[in-house]
């Protein structure tokens, strides 16, 4: 028989206290708000699931959620392939690789609100390089006036800001592939595409999973950059979830619906990350069933 010592629980007590103080108790506060109508600091009414029902029926919110999902998917669809392509074309060794690494990483060092400001000016048709160039080429570009232009500018800004992160992760993943794989591929007569498809891409699975999850979560919670660039407009074409939530909670002080919604928001992110993670873990790892081996 193994001796059982219940005192060991004491050892994890500090962790429990820290987590409780920093995460569980604040989260419970939110839960508390979500089931009450707070009329004034002294007056509150228990409303049960009222706010949740209300929030789920709110059309503005549904719109923001759809915009958000569309935006996050676009971010992944653009940034992941672009990051892989960048990493593949970066030099592997020598001073060139260091120079390229530093250059690529520059945008990652810029704070969010500065990125927003940079693009705000960059996209202006009177003094901004991008805006003026597009206008000069005859495009009717105006990110403060046209919904599509605003949406595309926010997407371009995110791609500009965060693709280097994907590229750096993939670069690290590529460097970790032993030379023997490339040698074996040369011996086996594999084409460049086959090397990418059967060696590089499978070996990047781990880093790509991290890249996808990071980019998904970050873009799903994007706030500062569109806030600085477009303020959520024109109309609410670039109002994403976090901005909508902030308007509710801080702007209108609707604590109940805001709390209810932030819980739903939290669950959506958790669910989508779980689905993504499991899918990426599983894709391309199953044994083949059936007798044929073509």
């Amino acid at each position, binding site marked *: 028989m193994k001796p059982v010592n219940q005192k060991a629980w004491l050892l994890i007590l500090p962790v429990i206290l820290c987590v409780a103080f920093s995460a569980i108790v604040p989260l419970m506060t939110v839960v508390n708000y979500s089931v009450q109508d707070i009329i004034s600091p002294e007056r509150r009414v228990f409303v049960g699931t009222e706010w949740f029902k209300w929030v789920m029926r709110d059309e503005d919110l549904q719109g923001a959620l759809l915009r958000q999902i569309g935006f996050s998917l676009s971010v992944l669809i653009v940034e992941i392939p672009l990051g892989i392509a960048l990493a593949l074309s970066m030099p592997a060794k020598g001073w060139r690789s260091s120079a390229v690494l530093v250059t690529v990483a520059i945008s990652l060092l810029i704070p969010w609100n500065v990125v927003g400001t940079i693009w705000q000016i960059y996209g202006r048709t009177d003094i901004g390089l991008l805006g003026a160039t597009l206008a000069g080429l005859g495009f009717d570009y105006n990110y403060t006036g046209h919904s599509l232009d605003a949406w595309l500018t926010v997407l371009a800004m995110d791609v500009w800001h965060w693709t280097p992160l994907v590229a750096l992760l993939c670069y690290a993943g590529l460097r970790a592939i*032993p030379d*023997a*794989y490339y*040698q*074996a591929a*040369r*011996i*086996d*007569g*594999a*084409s460049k595409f*086959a090397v990418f498809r*059967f*060696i590089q891409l*499978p*070996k990047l699975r781990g880093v790509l999973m991290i890249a996808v999850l990071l980019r998904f979560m970050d873009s799903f919670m994007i706030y500062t950059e569109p806030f600085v660039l477009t303020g959520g407009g024109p109309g609410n074409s670039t109002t994403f979830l976090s901005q909508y939530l902030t308007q509710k909670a801080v702007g209108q002080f609707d604590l109940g619906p805001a709390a209810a919604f932030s819980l739903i928001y939290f669950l959506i992110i958790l669910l989508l990350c779980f689905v993504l993670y499991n899918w990426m873990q599983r894709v*391309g*790892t*199953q*044994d*083949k*069933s*059936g*007798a044929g*081996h*073509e």
Partner: protein
Amino acid sequence: MARISLDLAHSYRPNPQRDEDFALLPLKMTFEDGGAYALLGPSGCGKTTLLNTVSGLVTPSQGSVSYDGRDVTGLTPQQRNIAQVFQFPVIYDTMTVAENLAFPLRNRGVSPDRIKQRVGQIAEMLEMSDQLNMRAAGLAADAKQKISLGRGLVREDVSAVLFDEPLTVIDPHLKWQLRRKLKQIHHELKLTLIYVTHDQVEALTFADEIVVMTRGRAVQIGSASDLFERPRHTFVGNFIGSPGMNFLPARGTGTGIEIAGRTLAAPTPELAGLAEFTLGVRPEYVELAAENAPGAVPAVVTQVQDIGTYWLITAQAGSGANASAIRARLSPDERIPAVGAHVWLSIVDTHTCFYLNEELIA
């Protein structure tokens, strides 16, 4: 299949000056069509570099490689049609075992029927037929290495199959089995096989011809018995055999040769005229001898070890500056001397080799 001739040198540095700058010193060598060769040497001796120049993964900095007289120095491994198996298993993670084995064929546009047939044969040979539909990534290291071996053998028209220490990760028991398999494949398919290893047993059992390498130089090419009986270089004498050859300093006295303070009859007149040289004799050929027997020297036993099938005794011959250790393998049937015993050991007979500046002279 091809006859492969090398006349090259290779350095990984841009401007090699001294011998140490070269990974491969200038060498000339021919691998005959259908031969089984082993490249044997300690780690870092240049055997993998030599193998890679044959396959085309490394282009030699000087000289040329030719297949059947055709210069292939500038060609890629694919153009040379070489198969090579590496030390650590390389498998394509997303493919099944069958797809892995089929990959070299598919890249060359072989018909699906033919691929299926070849993959089936190879799988049968490697005893992997029941694993064909499994994802290769989930298998154990030795199964993965069997897949690597299979990919090396799946093409029939290759110029040669090169193995770079392919059995390092394999269990000893399976090692024997696979080595025997390779040997069998060699007999059946008559492929040119070149096998890199640092394990002499592996080299001696696998190959018809063994190339012994040290410090970027191929010091001897020969059969197992050549390497054992007549090592051309003291390195070979030392490296081959367990334990290696005994080497004793000797000098000519004009009429005879002096070893460990005792003068013996000179086996050849030239030796008697040399000021300094080295005598080499395998522990297997050192025998206990009668007192003052011809070709024997007196020695004091310093160590006696039971190695199982034989006894290994170490004895010290001569004294002071002349002192040198002699190891002898004695059969258990013999009377084994105890530590401290004074014995006579015969060291000069027909099996004895003589070296000047590490090279065999007689």
